[in-house]
């Protein structure tokens, strides 16, 4: 087996990557600060505990991103001839499994306390020499801690699209969804304030269900990726337009009569085989094959390590679009 060339980043994408790395460090700092501030106003509220743990969990995707962007750029070697591009998908599986498990644990925690014992007690706190109800600082911290993630999430989305990064995209979406946690937590604490003792557990349940949802959606996406499903855009609702562009280019090549384009995602890269049937009377040379490969890889920076294989009988396209997940 021959060794691959390492995946190359064009200069402009490299710049976006560095911007994303910087943004992830900022995310870590901001979320750590939120986690610390929140710790001081936790009280014995289940809502606050759940929202706090969610903010701790929000540290996982940025950490995964920072590790993975280093690992995936390691060069292929004799032990790993295919390189490390898949590290992204592995990180994605691990991060989403963590979310799912934590979400289930918190949901159980929210519903398992019997109603008689679950009356949340939010006492007093000394603030600037005065005794204030701890619920007030809780509400302030909750509102303040919901805003920065929403802004950061918004900033991450275009970067995730530019460098086709699914982990970053999922992370950005989760950040943007912080408003749900914020609103639910506000409801929980404010509900306790007006004497609705069940509001605390209800809000905690809403937040934990949201964490479960994040975990499930992302785990199923990660598993599908590892199964080499049909490539899609990072937003996941459209087939990757690059596939059609590759097809058009191959079909427009004068010596090609017919083709089968078989592409799959490997991390952010798009790789695979192009089986081409030559036109009648044309003898395919190594120049033809190399030329076509180079032309395909020149379409987009993500097209990588494309194999062009001449054949008189390209395989039939498979039919059906069944998705068990």
């Amino acid at each position: 087996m021959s060794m691959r060339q390492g995946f190359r980043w064009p200069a402009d994408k490299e710049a976006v990557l560095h911007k994303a790395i910087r943004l992830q460090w900022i995310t870590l700092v901001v979320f750590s600060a939120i986690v610390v501030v929140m710790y001081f106003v936790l009280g014995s509220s289940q809502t606050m505990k759940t929202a706090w743990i969610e903010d701790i969990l929000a540290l996982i995707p940025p950490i995964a991103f920072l590790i993975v962007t280093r690992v995936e750029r390691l060069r292929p070697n004799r032990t790993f001839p295919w390189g490390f591009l898949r590290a992204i998908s592995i990180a994605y599986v691990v991060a989403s499994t963590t979310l799912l498990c934590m979400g289930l644990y918190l949901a159980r925690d929210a519903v398992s306390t019997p109603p008689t014992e679950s009356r949340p007690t939010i006492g007093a706190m000394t603030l600037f020499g005065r005794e204030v109800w701890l619920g007030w600082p809780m509400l302030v911290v909750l509102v303040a801690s919901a805003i920065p993630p929403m802004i950061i999430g918004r900033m991450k989305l275009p970067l995730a699209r530019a460098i086709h990064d699914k982990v970053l995209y999922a992370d950005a979406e989760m950040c943007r969804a912080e408003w749900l946690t914020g609103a639910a937590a506000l409801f929980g604490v404010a509900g306790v304030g007006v004497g609705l003792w069940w509001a605390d557990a209800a809000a905690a349940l809403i937040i934990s269900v949201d964490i479960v949802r994040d975990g499930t959606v992302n785990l199923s996406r990660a598993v599908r990726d590892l199964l080499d499903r049909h490539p899609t855009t990072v937003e996941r609702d459209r087939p990757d337009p690059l596939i059609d562009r590759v097809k058009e280019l191959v079909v427009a090549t004068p010596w090609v009569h017919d083709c089968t384009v078989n592409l799959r995602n490997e991390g952010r890269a798009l790789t695979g085989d192009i089986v081409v049937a030559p036109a009648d009377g044309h003898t395919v040379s190594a120049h033809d094959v190399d030329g076509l490969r180079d032309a395909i890889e020149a379409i987009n920076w993500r097209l990588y390590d494309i194999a062009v294989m001449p054949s008189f009988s390209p395989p039939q396209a498979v039919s059906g679009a069944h998705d068990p997940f």
Partner: protein
Amino acid sequence: MCVNMQRSERPHTGFERRRLLALGMAMPLVLAACRFPRDPSDTLERVSGGTVEVGVLESAPLAAWNGPDPEGVEVDLTADLAQTLSARPNWHARRDMALHEALERGDIDLLIGGLVADDPWSGRLAFTRPYLVESLMVEGRSGRPLDSIDGLEIAVGNTYLAGLVADAGGLPVSVQEPAAAGKAISIWRLPGEEAPEGEILLTRRHVMAVRLGENAWLLHLEQYLRGQAGRRARAALAMVQA
């Protein structure tokens, strides 16, 4: 080959989201208009101008049953607190656990009498933060706390104190023993004040308890205890000590 296998993802319901968000954000403002926080069982409203049902555990000098009515520093504080609410305290004495359970059920409103912050009932009752800190120490014959009681004979009044003295390396003896090198005393301070110098046998952080979830009542109690009440209690206890 280039078949679209992708199902469409969940639709975005932007309108609902925004409405929910607005609701969540507006809630605290609406609440600020009413009295906030409130009790799920309306304890504070009920006791104001009425009766406070108070469970009193035996724990001299904080609370003690020497007659038909209890007396002690925490009893005085509670009576004063009730007065600020134009309420009358109704004292209850029962076996310890019975009072805890009564408070858990909501049969009484307040439990006092030497409760401490690391109480095993902390998940079932709502405790205030400590309002008074007690350091059990040994006073030497000079009248000053000893730095070490290792090997010294210390006069103690009960077996519990005897155990503490023995743990610290001292030799517990009866209070009648004239040759004792020192006797156990309590030094009282407010939370946040510096601990006294000398060997501390035990630190107790004193609290009171209300029913779980009665947040307005708890807040009222905490505001009272953290105000002048703590200072007054400490002054009263210094008198008792002397």
